C-alpha cells in the first residue's frame, strides 16, 4: 500500500495529524464541540489567575499586579465568608439527613400500592414540582408561607392553635428548615424514580419464597427490598457526599433575602453577590476557586469510592 509506506517516512507527529485528515469529516463534526469546551470551559480555568492578582477591570489579567495568596487570606479573615461555609455545610448536611432518605421512603411506600391508577396519579402529581423552576417555586412558597394569610400559617393557627404567624422565609430560626422541607417537596417524587425502578427489577420469586416461609410484609421489605436497594442507596449517598458544597444555589438565591443571610447565605450565593453585585472580581474568583478545588477533590474521591464499591461486587 502506498499510503502506509508514505506514512512511515513521516515524522510521528505528522503521522498522527494525518489521521485527523483521514477522518476529516468526523474531525469537522468534533471541531465545534472541542472549540466550545476550550473557549467556555478551559479559557475560564485560566481566569483563575485573577484570584492571585490585585485584579483591576481596566488593566486586565496582563496588567494587574500579582499579590500571591492575599485574596485568600482576605477571604478567610472575612466573617461573611466563614459564615457562608458554615451555612453551606449545615444546609447540605440537613438535606442529606432528611432529603436523602425521603425519596427512598417514598419509593418503598409507592411500591406497596396495588391500585395501578392510584399509583399513577400519585406519581404524576409528585413529579410536578420537579418541572418547575426555583423562580416559580419561590413564587408559590412566598404565597403559601406568607405571614399574613398564607395558607400554612392560617392552617397552623386555626387547627394547631399557633398564636403568632411564622415568617418562614424571613426568620433566621426557620429559614434553613424551610429550605430543606421545600427541597424535599420539590424532589421527592422525581427522586424516587430510580429507587422504584430498582425495586421493580427485584426477582419476584424471592418474594414468593418469602411468602411461603410466612414472612409478613414488613419482613419482606426488611429482608428483601431494602437489601436489594442497598447498592443503589450506597452509590447515591456517596455521590451526594461528593457535592456537599453545593447546598442549592438556584433554590437559595430565589428564596433568601438580606434578613436571613445569617442562616441562609451559602458559598455560591456569596460568590455571586461579591462578584456580580459588588463587582469584586478578585475576591469572588478566589472564593470560587477555593470551593471548586475542594469540590473537585470530594467528587473525585467519592466517585472513586463509588466505582470501587460497585465494581468489586461487594454487594
Amino acid at each position, binding site marked *: 500500500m502506498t499510503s502506509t509506506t508514505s506514512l512511515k517516512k513521516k515524522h510521528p507527529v505528522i503521522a*498522527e495529524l494525518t489521521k485527523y485528515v483521514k*477522518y476529516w*469529516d*468526523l474531525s469537522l*463534526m*468534533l471541531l465545534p*464541540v*472541542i472549540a*466550545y*469546551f476550550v473557549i*467556555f470551559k478551559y*479559557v*475560564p*480555568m485560566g*481566569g*483563575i489567575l*485573577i484570584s492571585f492578582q490585585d485584579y483591576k477591570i481596566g488593566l486586565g489579567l496582563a496588567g494587574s499586579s500579582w499579590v500571591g495568596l492575599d485574596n485568600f487570606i482576605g477571604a478567610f479573615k472575612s466573617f461573611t465568608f466563614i459564615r457562608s461555609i458554615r451555612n453551606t455545610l449545615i444546609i447540605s448536611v440537613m438535606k442529606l439527613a432528611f432529603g436523602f432518605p425521603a425519596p427512598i421512603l*417514598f419509593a418503598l*411506600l*409507592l411500591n*406497596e400500592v*396495588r391500585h395501578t391508577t*392510584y399509583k399513577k396519579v*400519585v406519581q*404524576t402529581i*409528585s*413529579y*410536578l*414540582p420537579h*418541572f*418547575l*423552576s426555583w*423562580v*416559580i417555586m419561590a*413564587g*408559590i412558597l*412566598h*404565597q403559601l408561607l406568607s405571614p399574613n*394569610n*398564607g*395558607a400554612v*400559617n392560617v*392552617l397552623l393557627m386555626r387547627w394547631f392553635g399557633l398564636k403568632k404567624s411564622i415568617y418562614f422565609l424571613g426568620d433566621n430560626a426557620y429559614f434553613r428548615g424551610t429550605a430543606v422541607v421545600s427541597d424535599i417537596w420539590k424532589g421527592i417524587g422525581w427522586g424516587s*424514580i*430510580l429507587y422504584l*425502578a430498582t425495586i421493580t427489577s427485584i426477582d*419476584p420469586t424471592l*418474594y414468593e419464597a418469602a411468602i411461603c416461609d410466612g414472612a409478613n*410484609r*414488613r419482613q419482606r421489605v426488611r429482608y428483601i427490598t431494602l437489601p436489594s436497594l442497598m447498592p443503589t442507596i450506597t452509590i447515591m449517598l456517596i455521590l451526594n457526599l461528593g457535592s456537599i458544597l453545593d447546598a442549592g444555589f438556584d433554590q437559595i438565591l*430565589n428564596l433568601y433575602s438580606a434578613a436571613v443571610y445569617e442562616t441562609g447565605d451559602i458559598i455560591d450565593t456569596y460568590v455571586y453577590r461579591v*462578584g*456580580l453585585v459588588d463587582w469584586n*472580581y478578585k475576591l*469572588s474568583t478566589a472564593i*470560587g476557586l477555593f*470551593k*471548586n478545588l475542594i469540590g*473537585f477533590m470530594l467528587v*473525585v474521591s467519592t466517585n472513586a469510592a463509588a466505582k470501587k464499591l460497585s465494581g468489586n461486587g461487594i454487594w
Partner: protein
Amino acid sequence: MKREKFGVGDIVIYLLLGIICLTIVFAFIHLLNISLSPNGTTGSGLMIIPDKPTLDNYAKVIKNKYIWQGYKNTLIRTLLGTSIQLIFTAMGAYVLSKKFYPHRTFWTLLIVFTMFFSGGLIPTYLVVKQLGLIDTYAAMLIPGLVSAYNLTIMRNFFQSLPEEIEESCMIDGAGRFRIFWQFILPLSTPILATIALWLAVGHWNAWFDVLIYITDDKKFTLQIILRRIIITGSKEILESDAAAHSVADEPLVSSEGLKAASIYVATIPILCTYPFLQRYFVKGIMVGSLKG
C-alpha cells in the same frame, strides 16, 4: 404474587402518599384562589374559590407587554437552544463513539473533566463579556452549548449501534455526514427525544444566565420577568404598565393577585404537557443511571 387483604398498613400508606400529593395540589389551588381574588388574598387563606372571583388579575397580566415579550423570548430560546444544543451534542457524541477516531480517549477526557472542575462564575462571565455576548440572545444559547453529561449519555447510546451497517453504507459510497443524518439520527430518536426534552425544560426554566448576561429588558425571558415580579418584588414591571392604562375609577388590584396570575400564565404550558411527556423523562433517568 398472591393478593393480600387490604389492611390497616395499606390505609396508612395510601393516606401518607395522598397527603404528600394533596399538599402539591393544594398549593396550586391556593395560588388559583389568590389569582382570582379581587383583593389578592381573601379573608381566609384556605378557601378554594374566593367569595367574588374575578379575572381582573389575568386581564392585567395578559395585557402586559413584558409578559408577552418574555413569552416570545422564552419560546425562541427554547426552540432555538434545544435544536442547536441537540445537534452539536449529537455530532460530538457521534465522533467520540468511534473507537478508531484518533486520540478519542484524550478528547473524551478533555470534555468529561469539565464536569468536575470549572473556572467559576467570574472567569466565565469575563469570557462571555470579552466575546461581546453580553446583552445578546447568543448569551442564552452559546455558553451552555454542549453539556458534558448529555454528550456522554449520547455517546454511550451511539456506541451500542452496530458499526457494520455503517461500513456497508460507506461501501455504497455514503460519507460520514450522510450516514450521521440519514442513518444514525433516525436510529437514535429515543435518546434524542429524551435529551431534547431535558434541554427544552432547562431552557424554559432558565433564569440565571439571563440575570447575569442580559440587561436589556426587551430580551428578558419569562422566568426573569417573573423573578422581577415575584422575588425582587419590583412593581414597576406589572404596575407601571398597569398605571399607563389605568383609569381613575379602576379598582386597585393587589400585587399578590397579579403575582399569582402571572405564575399561572407562565406555568400553564408545563402543567398541560408534563403528564404526557413524563415517561420520556423517566426513561432518561434510567439511561443516565447506566452511564459508564
